[in-house]
């Protein structure tokens, strides 16, 4: 029998017995099983989308984290009420993002949105932050505004990794209310 990457077949005018033809068929079958398994793994990316359960109280100047404590969609979600904890996820490279959906009252000039990723690596805590300033027109009673942010992060220890969205408001005299339409999301795009 000869072999091409696991596919075996009878050689020359060797007897083409039922047993040898069966080995040929089974070797093709084994190769197909491996391909199908890899295909299924590629299709099943870890993905999570979470949102606040209730609209927040009006907030003005200062920093704040947002409770993204309701799951919109998740193939796999860890514990944690203020973001996405990756306890039950696989290590890998993650694309993550979020946006604030809010209503404004009074004069709000800017919202600074931050996507924070933190992870304990040995004795130290590493943190990556992407930020976006959303400038708002200072109009009283302005309607819904959104501020979006997105980044690429490397999760090496899912047990200590965490995604969250934070924000600060630059507001001379107004305030914002974060709504349940806000989102925080993360998707695993590949292994390390």
């Amino acid at each position, binding site marked *: 029998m000869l072999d091409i990457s696991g596919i075996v077949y009878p050689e020359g*005018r060797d007897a083409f017995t039922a047993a040898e033809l069966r080995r040929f068929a089974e070797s093709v079958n084994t190769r197909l099983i491996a391909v199908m398994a890899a295909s299924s793994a590629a299709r099943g990316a870890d993905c999570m989308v979470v949102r606040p359960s209730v609209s927040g109280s009006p907030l003005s100047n200062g920093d704040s984290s947002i409770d993204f404590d309701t799951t919109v969609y998740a193939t796999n979600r860890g514990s944690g009420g203020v973001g996405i904890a990756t306890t039950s996820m696989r290590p890998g490279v993650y694309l993550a993002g979020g946006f604030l959906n809010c209503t404004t009252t009074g004069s709000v000039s800017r919202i600074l949105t931050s996507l924070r990723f933190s992870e304990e690596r040995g004795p130290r805590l590493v943190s*990556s932050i992407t930020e976006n300033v959303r400038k708002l027109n200072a109009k009283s009673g302005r309607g819904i505004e959104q501020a979006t942010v997105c980044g690429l992060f490397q999760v090496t220890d899912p047990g200590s990794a965490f995604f969250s969205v934070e924000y600060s408001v630059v507001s001379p005299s107004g305030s914002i209310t974060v709504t349940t339409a806000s989102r925080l999301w993360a998707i695993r795009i590949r292994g390390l």
Partner: protein
Amino acid sequence: MPGATTTYSIPYPAAGDGPCLLGDVLATAAARIDAVLSTVEARVTRVSEPECFRVSATGTTTLNNVITWNGVDIDPGGMVDLTADPQGVEVGGSPGVWLKISSATTPYSSTSGNVLNMFVDGAGSTVRDLDAAQNPPSGGVSIFAGFAEQISGPAGVSTSSIINAELFWSGTGAPSVPTVTTAYLAGVRIGDA
């Protein structure tokens, strides 16, 4: 005379083929099956392990020009070479549709009429994504830009296969110290062209 399947030309013996021909047919069939499966395996690997990178910058950069990067954060495929080009990442070796993201935080501030802008693009590309902060507040500003673009490559053929980011200032009163507190540029190949 052996037959063959329509789509992938996998041969099979026909009635009346002799024993000598059977050996050749089976050998050819095994080779064809291996070739087809190898192609499928390569595609699956590309889907499950897409090319991606993230580089970062701290310190100074040249305002009104592309950002110079000094750190490699994520590079599982080894495609980043900041020694050869500290201002961009050549992705032409993996043509396709790329998602590009960049963010920068600077201490620039202004009170009237000035805008700090960010481009994420390929050099020479006409497709750009722009974010702007008008009248950046005291203490600095962060801006963010991202979009997806088809990059044809291959490497070295087109300058548009280099992903980079630019910061520039429009209006008067640009700061004299061109500093970036933190900045990053990321790319993910999300599909075939």
